[in-house]
């Protein structure tokens, strides 16, 4: 870009930002545990997105695949998108009934920076799953996911008993 004589910081328009994130989602840049993409390829405003988080190891979330919805309105990236879990999850910053991530409980959404991306949100949520208050929470049994080992272990103990 031509920045001759311009003293201010270059502001990337919304569509260019979203297109860049879309390409990064397609290429899969990152550690391979989060993935995201547009919900509807024909949406010219690119507002509705789908993301997945693979549960981090050594936690109750291990082996689970969490599916989320992210909604980027026209004021993104100046304001954070709304994040909602489609897969049932028990976390301190997630509303149990609606699956919405509470900005007041999730600092990345509460203290939003323009430089944050949707990938950063997903990685932040994955780190939140490894936090001490969430690492041992009992997770709801979701029919779409694989069978939980803890419940079967409990059944095994009861049968032995």
């Amino acid at each position, binding site marked *: 870009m031509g920045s001759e004589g311009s003293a201010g910081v270059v502001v990337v328009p919304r569509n260019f930002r979203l297109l860049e994130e879309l390409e990064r989602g397609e290429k*899969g840049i990152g550690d*391979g545990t989060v993935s995201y993409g547009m919900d509807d390829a024909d949406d010219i405003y690119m507002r509705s997105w*789908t993301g*997945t988080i693979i549960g981090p190891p050594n936690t109750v979330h291990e082996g689970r695949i969490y599916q989320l919805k992210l909604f980027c309105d026209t004021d993104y990236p100046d304001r954070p998108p709304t994040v909602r879990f489609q897969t049932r999850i028990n976390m301190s910053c997630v509303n149990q009934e609606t699956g919405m991530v509470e900005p007041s409980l999730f600092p990345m959404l509460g203290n939003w920076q323009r430089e944050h991306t949707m990938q950063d949100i997903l990685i932040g949520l994955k780190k939140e799953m490894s936090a001490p208050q969430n690492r041992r929470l009992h997770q709801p049994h979701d029919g779409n996911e694989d069978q939980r080992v803890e419940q079967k272990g409990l059944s095994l103990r009861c049968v032995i*008993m």
Partner: protein
Amino acid sequence: MSGGDGEEAAAAAAAATLHIRCTNGSKLAVRADLGLSVGAFKAIVAESCDVPAPQQRLIYKGRILKDEQTLASYGVETDHTIHMVRGAAPPPASTAPPAANNVTPAINATTASNSPAVGFGGLLHGLGGSGSANSGGLGSFGSGLPELSQMQQQLSENPTLMREIMNMPLMQNILNSPDLIRNIIMNNPQMREIVDRNPDLAHVLNDPSILRQTVEAARNPELMREMMRNTDRAMSNIESSPEGFNMLRRMYETVQEPFLNATTMAGEGDRSSNPFSALLGNHGSNQARDPAANSPTTTSESTTGSPAPNTNPLPNPWSTTAGAAQGATRPSPVTNARSATAGGLGGLSSTDLGGMLGGGSDTSFLSQVLQNPTMMQMMQNIMSNPQSMNQLLNINPNVRNMMESNTQLREMFQNPEFVRQLTSPETLQQLISFQQSLMSQLGQQQAGPERTQSGAGAGNTNLNNLMSMFSGLGAGGGLGVPSAPNVPPEELYATQLAQLQEMGFFDTQENIRALIATAGNVHAAVERLLGNIG
């Protein structure tokens, strides 16, 4: 440059190059047609890595790819990246990695040695529970889940009851013959199916030493607790090691889940077995809490059940043989006779209290009473004295009210002939059978007082049982007129026949024959029927 563009165009038309990223960070390129279905694409990916197709979870742009869709429908294009996660093994477990792949042999050996005995302990718990409910009934193993859970709960709350059941001659004879136990277990079709699928389980059932070890564990609460602790520790160790989860899951799905389905008679599939797992989970948590709370409750119930406040503390002459011997050596002035009378009523209440914990205990206790000549003589002396009988009845307020409201009942008890008939062993055994059926009907009420841990509630239940027995006896006996002997056996032994049916003896003619031969004694009839089977 134009030549290069042509080559790229040709390659794109033939097959697209897709990048696969695994969870462990490795990356590989796969060439596949975009029109392929996801299932077929997984098969191609399986050739390049060591994850079988059923265990692959493919994620692209935030979506989990489903096997029925095509790659093009998800918008996959060349040079795009698809994330792959290794999922859980499918239920058949045919594609699971070989056993003990990443597990220490010592841990595996520990589990292999512990699981069969402990698993059979659970089986024997169910067996003991059925025996407690149905006076040694053995064919009813695998009855409904609520009844089984209730029996197991009562059994685990009272180690003394377990010891008493195991020491009964009937149980000893059963456990000493492995053939009989194998026959009992094979009566259940699902158990037979499990044994056909698992030769190791058949070996466990046929090994007398394992049976004996299981009986010892069930009889000794400390040993049972220690075995459970060892099993939990072994399972935790396995769970912590790599691939330990898969091994535990495989063990559960191969042995314990069919076992659980067979026990609960709910073998309709994995979906229907999940609710039972939750129920058993709750049951397990309840068990951990009950034993500590049950001990003081039993003590308070024993105290409340004794309706002799105006007498000095007297050891229960009916509780043990030593008490009986002590009573026999005592002289018999009038004061001591009154004390014996009060003690007798206390013993009767203890009998009812014991009956709350299970029919088996009641039967065993009363059998001991009937076989003791001193106790029979003492009861004879009490019954033959009208004044002692009146004092006995007046001590209890509820019984006194019942006597005042029903003069016929009072006259009945004043009648020496009726009292003599009541004292005869045959009548007492019929009374025992009647009480057993009454106990089974009042199963719901029994649980209520125990749950609330209310001594008064327990006392009321005891008295209700007592009054029901008296009312039934009065209605059946009339005014001292014995029951007609020419009543058909089906009507005469209707209660006993129902009990035998509940135990699992479904041959009505055989049951009637056994009951006639044993004069209506369910216990002896069961022994006779089992003798025929053996």
